[in-house]
């Protein structure tokens, strides 16, 4: 009968029937009404059918594989929590890296989830739509597994008890928040270059390796397992990022300058965002994986550059900002940590001065800069602290209008001079940390004047706790801002030394290793 002569379908053919064959050209409604977001960015796509599926995964296999991964992950998280795994980390300073992670990253994953959902609906072909939908649901996974992996730390340590509230308000968290809100408010093609290509493909290793390897090196099995479990998802996301860029470039030569502009912009935006990761790697992990500089050299200068070599045949050039980043790699983490150290009363994690061993490690990893510029600062901070005059910067810093990081970066060729740039728009002055942030602003001033800069907002009186009266004689503006952030003064912030975290960890570790 007819069953026996059935033509055997190839994998590719079969997957096409499972996905792109489901779509159709609308005829009762206009195509531009069904897909209204495809034209306004100027990207020209002539034939959506030439899209090559970056991976072939039907829903039944997706459910099967992902459920298997979830089962393993939650079994390990449960075991880690049940056995007080938090007491097995190298030392309690490590937990501050997880505070930064929870404060910043799940909210990013969440926005990626919503952003990819938008693309899953609005891309012009079933192939890319399905790939984006899978990334959308994966990003929800990452958001939730991160929260679930780290939530046990919140039960025992301070600083992240109201992470979501802080994510929308606390000063330094506007950096990651604005990064993703910037991407999500872009059109679909820019979003996917920003997140799918620049962030997931070019920079993902520089996020993953520090945090996940950092967790592995420091005895944090829960976070480590989350990271390893997310790896195969990330691999899919990277192939999507690469396919998208090739697809766009192959469709029309007019796409090249637009795509190049986005790559330049988002490489720089991403690298600025990674400043905090650089600091985490060099200062916050008791057991270091590698220095930021080494990570940058391996994952960007080697791997990233070979990617750009592959893309050269389409006319893509290495972004100009790479020259500046090369110069900054010797300075970035040190400038960031000194800034956070000086702002310790205003942060939801603890800071400290590196121990002598750690200072030596930094000297060895950064032979050209550390002893010359930064070690003396830490030694000065230490002397001050020992005298009981712990150094604190009492001023609210000026923020860059684009990356929203305080003006802490120095001139690329003069590490003793803080870099300031300025542009005017509609009679107002705007400030930037670098040529590249200024350039981004100058290209789209209407967008970036809408930034919500925490320092400006504080100065305008928009960040006081509800019910506080700024005209009252005993009004304490700093206390009121902390209340607005839900920052518990004396518990969440300040020095690690003498903190409740430090004391509790020592006491609890004692309970689990001795009988007294």
């Amino acid at each position: 009968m007819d069953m026996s002569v059935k033509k055997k379908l190839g994998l590719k053919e079969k997957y096409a029937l499972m996905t792109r064959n489901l779509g159709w050209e609308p005829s009762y409604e206009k195509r531009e009404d069904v897909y209204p977001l495809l034209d306004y960015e100027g990207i020209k796509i002539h034939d959506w059918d030439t899209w090559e599926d970056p991976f072939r995964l039907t829903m039944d296999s997706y459910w099967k594989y992902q459920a298997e991964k979830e089962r393993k992950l939650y079994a390990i998280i449960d075991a880690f929590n049940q056995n007080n795994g938090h007491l097995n980390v190298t030392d309690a300073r490590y937990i501050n890296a997880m505070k930064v992670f929870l404060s910043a990253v799940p909210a990013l994953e969440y926005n990626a989830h919503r952003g990819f959902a938008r693309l899953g609906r609005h891309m012009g072909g079933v192939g890319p739509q399905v790939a984006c939908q899978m990334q959308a649901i994966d990003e929800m996974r990452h958001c939730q597994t991160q929260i679930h992996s780290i939530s046990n730390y919140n039960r025992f340590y301070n600083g992240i008890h109201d992470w979501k509230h802080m994510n929308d308000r606390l000063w330094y968290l506007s950096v990651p928040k604005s990064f993703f809100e910037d991407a999500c408010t872009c059109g679909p093609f820019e979003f996917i270059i920003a997140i799918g290509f620049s962030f997931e493909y070019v920079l993902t290793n520089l996020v993953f390796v520090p945090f996940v390897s950092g967790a592995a090196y420091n005895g944090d099995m829960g976070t480590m397992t989350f990271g390893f479990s997310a790896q195969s998802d990330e691999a899919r996301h990277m192939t999507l990022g690469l396919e998208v860029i090739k697809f766009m470039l192959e469709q029309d030569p007019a796409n090249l300058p637009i795509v190049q502009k986005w790559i330049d912009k988002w490489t720089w935006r991403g690298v600025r965002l990674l400043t905090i990761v650089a600091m985490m790697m060099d200062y916050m992990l008791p057991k270091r994986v590698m220095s930021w500089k080494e990570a940058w050299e391996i994952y960007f200068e080697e791997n990233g550059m070979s990617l750009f070599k592959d893309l050269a045949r389409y006319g893509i050039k290495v972004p100009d900002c790479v020259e500046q980043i090369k110069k900054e790699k010797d300075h970035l983490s040190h400038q960031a940590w000194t800034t956070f150290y000086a702002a310790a009363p205003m942060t939801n994690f603890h800071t400290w001065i590196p121990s002598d061993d750690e200072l030596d490690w930094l000297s060895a990893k950064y032979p050209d800069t550390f002893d010359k510029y930064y070690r003396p600062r830490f030694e000065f901070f230490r002397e001050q602290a020992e005298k009981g005059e712990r150094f604190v910067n009492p001023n609210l810093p000026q923020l860059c209008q684009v990356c929203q990081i305080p003006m802490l970066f120095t001139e690329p060729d003069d590490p003793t001079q803080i870099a300031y740039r300025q542009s005017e728009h509609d009679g107002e002055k705007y400030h930037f940390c670098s040529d590249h942030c200024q350039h981004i602003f100058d290209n789209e001033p209407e967008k970036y004047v809408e930034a919500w800069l925490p320092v400006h907002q504080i100065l305008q009186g928009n960040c006081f706790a509800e019910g506080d009266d700024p005209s009252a004689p005993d009004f304490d503006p700093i206390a009121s801002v902390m209340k607005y952030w839900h920052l518990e003064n004396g518990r969440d912030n300040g020095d690690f030394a003498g903190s409740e975290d430090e004391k509790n960890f020592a006491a609890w570790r004692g309970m689990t290793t001795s009988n007294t």
Partner: protein
Amino acid sequence: MQIDLRTVSIKPLRNTFDHLVRRFGDKPASRYQEGSYDIQADTNLQYRPSWDPEHELHDAGRTAIVMSDWYALKDPRQFYYGAYTLARARQQEAAEASFTFVESRALLDQMDAATRSRALAVLMPLRHAAWGANMNNTSMCADGYGTLITQPCMYHAMDNLGVAQYLTRLGLLLGDAATLEAGREAWLNDAAWQPLRRLVEKTLVTRDWFELFVAQNFVLDGLLYPLIYGQFVDKHLNAHGGAGVSMLTAFMSEWHDETRRWIDAVLKTAAAESAANQALLSDWTRQWRGRAAEALSPIAQQALGASAAEVLATVEQSFNDRAAKLGLTL
């Protein structure tokens, strides 16, 4: 007998995150709660979306429905990603077993040629309707407000894709690529399918995401699934040697029963919120019910012949009862 295993017990400083304490009191939170409540940014949003400058990035104003707290729309299944994939993986395993069973016992051969071609004629074009449902639910996830409602919409979208893919496999088992092509041709050109395709295309240009939720998940699928999988496959085909088809679409029937608990909970809560919501939801339901009943009529005809009108009336009646239970007035 109880074995008393011990671990070193340390008293934690707090039970859970503050935003959950504010909602549920000071007690340990579930993973659903931790992973869902208040996760979407709702404060100090930056930049106007270039694709919708009238609204903020996340904006409750993308629907006419008004809720004082969007996190009232709880999913009774409490699906977060892990719970969702585990549930679907179990169903997937059962579906896999059914495909193997049906194939190895040649169960589909029990249908005569006419029944077989009727099964294909009705089911194959529905692959495309399921893709429309997928796009709509993806859209609700993108445009909706508050993770409690956007999250299950994304899961629902992936389920819609899964349904389209199970139908594709069924088509390939009963026929071959040409069978799928014939279904596609019917979807695009056969007179009987044009009202449904017109309706689906109309949903694709419906911009209010909550209206879309009503149109797609409540009304259209609320009529289509009972009609096609309940009446046509499980009753009609079953009675004509089509038990094999029934096994291969068991996922759809079970899925419809499960997801309907969520859809009902959302509508019930939103309707109970205010008279304005209730009126709007009733109005949307009425409008889309009229269109959907009209669009499904020629398909019911094709599926059930002479008894079509009667069966469709039964399906509509139980839909009306369902709507009434949710507090809607049709």
